[in-house]
């Protein structure tokens, strides 16, 4: 197939599917309804390091995890979740909460929507981790 046909077909096809998915309401991000869900989401990534404490943020979009030895974060990846340890993380306050920069090419930046009180608590936790 000539590139002059293939290229527009691919670009238009991808754009149409993405717009359609968004219009169908399929861009909604996952939420963590309770601490049990946050705990399960953490264990899904780190089954051998169980949380001893879970701090769910007010809007239920992320959770701060404490295990026996380390701290970590669970956050939504689209309709699903993922998790990382916070070792080496740098936090910066933003208008809507916190931005975490992790030394991890597969999860370089996490944007957390937090209340001002929560921001302070998370920053304290991160200081302990660093």
């Amino acid at each position, binding site marked *: 197939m000539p590139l002059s046909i293939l290229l527009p077909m691919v670009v238009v096809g991808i754009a149409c*599917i*993405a717009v359609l998915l968004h219009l*169908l309401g*399929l*861009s909604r991000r996952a939420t963590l309804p309770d601490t049990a869900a946050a705990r399960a989401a953490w264990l899904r*990534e780190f089954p051998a390091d169980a949380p001893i404490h879970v701090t769910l943020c007010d809007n239920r979009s992320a959770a701060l995890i404490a295990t026996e030895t380390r701290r970590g974060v669970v956050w939504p*990846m689209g*309709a*699903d979740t993922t998790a990382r340890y916070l070792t080496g993380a740098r936090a910066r306050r933003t208008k809507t909460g916190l931005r975490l920069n992790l030394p991890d090419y597969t999860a370089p930046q996490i944007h957390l929507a937090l209340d001002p009180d929560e921001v302070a608590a998370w920053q304290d936790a991160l200081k302990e981790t660093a």
Partner: protein
Amino acid sequence: MTDITPFPDVVNLAVPLFIAAILAELLWIVIKGRGGRYETRDALTSLIMGAGNVASGILLGFVAYGFFMVLWNISPLDLGTSIGVIALCFVLDDLRYYWVHRFGHRIRWVWASHVNHHSSQHYNLTTALRQTWTGTFTFMMVVRAPLILLGFHPGMVLFVGGLNLIYQFWIHTEAIGRMPRWFEAVMNTPSHHRVHHGRNPRYLDCNYAGVFIIWDKMFGTFVPELEEDKVDFGLVRNLGTFNPIRVAFHEWISIFRDATQPGLTWRERLKYCVMPPGWSHDGSRETSTAIKARFLADHPENTGTPGFPLNR
């Protein structure tokens, strides 16, 4: 010996079919409220990875094709292009696919290219298109060398390889449960391939087949989909980004960082490139074998069940 290839680039020709089938599956899921999940950013990443795969084929395809033409020109054999020869080539190329795919999960250098195909936590027809941009750098084209040397024309080998990829498109779906028993016994199906995409300890490193599931049954890597162990899709450690560049290159970056860290022997540096994913010089990480062993230690009642052979 002819250098003229009468075989079309079937994967490019199938692009309209891919788009139509994705729309049909999406419609089915939305109307029926079952049969899989879609999410905008995940699907967009998968589709961009697919487009990038086609682009990398256009830019780098000459490397593999040039290699094949060198082999073709030194081979004294030419089996022609009859239907029987094409059918035989298709079957043998599917055996080739099985081994390349198995290497892709057991050799980190090859996994670095293949990992992006497993990086979605969804399993729908867009996942099928989440393909590598870096396949050329795995040098797995050498596994096709015997076919060329046996007298299968390079154009034919690439043609049947394209048909193989097109076959695998439709099996990336949750909308189809199980096919008829005879079909499940011989062919790769949505059920068998869902298992391959599972991150459950039971489902790690199995069902490598492209078209014929018989290869897994022959070589002892077949695991059936079990009702009691619902497939959890994605990577053992799921990505925290939808950025296609990071999806495409993350494992290569990781290999580079591991192999260049100070204090290692040259043997350890090499092992970071070629040992199974999860290998580390200090044992601080887990391979799929270690993950299965840990799971069995916690759930010994699963010993001897599919995916957990007794001799592991």
